């Protein structure tokens, strides 16, 4: 009787621990990529790929080390298309902390136009970069049209809302 009570309590403890871990993981792995149509005229055109820090070189060999030294945990990437024409890639780097995101963002963006996004954001004609907590987001378009900056900004706000 006493034995089975202990067994039941242990089972409950294990289930609770698993639930806490699951919820924690789920929060950490929140999908920051807007689905097709969630942002007007933007379609998600690829599956999301995620690279752990040790494998980041497979995605951005040569660039990976600066992210690793700033404490990147993982990087996720997905492709998008605007109005079925303008192609773009969204990279979401999950850093160990906000300082890591700040460190990357401060590298080489002094000539960019500041924009209201997350904790800090900047924009160029074909790209938007912003950070929010431990996340660093970079969105790049492969073509420059008069509508590119506005379209990128809309997508960036969509990503920000999911972080």
């Amino acid at each position, binding site marked *: 009787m006493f034995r089975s009570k202990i067994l039941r309590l242990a089972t409950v403890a294990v289930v609770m621990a698993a639930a806490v871990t699951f919820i924690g993981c789920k929060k950490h792995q929140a999908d920051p990529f807007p689905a097709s149509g969630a942002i007007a005229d933007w379609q998600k055109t690829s599956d999301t790929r995620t690279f752990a820090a040790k494998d980041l*070189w497979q995605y*951005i*060999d*040569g*660039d*990976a*080390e*600066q992210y690793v030294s700033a404490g990147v945990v993982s990087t996720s990437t997905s492709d998008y298309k605007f109005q079925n024409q303008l*192609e773009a*890639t969204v990279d979401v780097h999950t850093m160990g902390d906000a300082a890591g995101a700040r460190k990357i963002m401060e590298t*080489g963006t002094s*000539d*960019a136009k500041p924009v209201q996004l997350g904790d800090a954001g900047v924009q*160029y*004609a*074909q*790209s938007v970069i912003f950070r929010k907590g431990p996340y660093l987001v970079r969105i*790049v*378009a*492969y*073509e*420059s049209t008069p509508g590119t900056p506005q379209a990128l900004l809309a997508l960036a706000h969509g990503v920000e809302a999911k972080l």
Partner: protein
Amino acid sequence: MKSRREFIKTTATGALLLGSSAAADKLGFAVMLDNQHAASSKSRVVVARDTDLHGQDGQLDEKRVLALLDRAIATYTGHDKPVEAWKRIVPMDKVIGLKVNGLGGKGISTHAALVMAVCERLQQAGVKAGNILVWDRNARDLQACGLTVSTDPNRIRVYGSDVAGFETEPAAFGLAVNVKLAKILTRECDMVLNLPILKDHEMAGVTFAMKNMYGVVQHPNELHAAGCNPGVADLNCIPVVRHKVRFTIGDAMTSVYDGGPGFHPERLWQPSALIVGEDRVALDQTAWQMIERKRAEVGMPTLEGAGRPPRYIATAADAAHGLGVNDPKHIHLLEV
């Protein structure tokens, strides 16, 4: 820098050493080009430019790319007829690999228009379609170049090491120990034409001819220490890399002068050029100077000032490596 007339005179003298083209074919590619070198103590590098290469929409004009390639090859070989010129460069009955670079993703990868132009001339010169193998690390890199994977043996083949795999036995030279080489290089290609794209590089300073060989090993990230020096030089000294990769047609039509090797559109620039030659060190030295000139033009510090000079270039030229020359006095540069 020499005039085009003077340059062609030198290369023509080199060609004469060979006797008939039939004899040259028997000798094979390496001998053809080495004999040409014997005529000049300097390493030849051609930089061919076309300022109208990109249309108003920023897209490359494919016909102009072909014409630019012809001009570069004609200047290098001294043969104005493209088909004859290509016959001096490649053996007809061998498998010719074209090592492209799609690492930076769409926007900063070897352009498909250049790959197509080279393939067109190779076939016109007599290389069978099935003997042309366009390759890189994987399908994604090839797609970034605008290419479609194909393993059909009767057509131009396009696939990566994700299909062909790597050797299980490591190759070594100096620091580049334990690198497992792509089977496409070791087993499938008899000769490789190197088609890198010119880029700034966060660690190495510059990536062009020699650095493109990082795409022939399974774990290139293991060669990144100390600004890829001596990793780049050592890797190029591995015999199969040194001997099979003999000619570079470098894509400097679009480039990034900072923030590379990834695609940073805010640092994009269009040199609208091809850089052609055999001496991989002289090619990289020339490419490095192009990036430095652009950085100076936009008010950026030199790569030395940015803390990442491409030291591997001098290493590649040292006596231990002997891959080529980096002293401008020994580079025979012709800009056309």
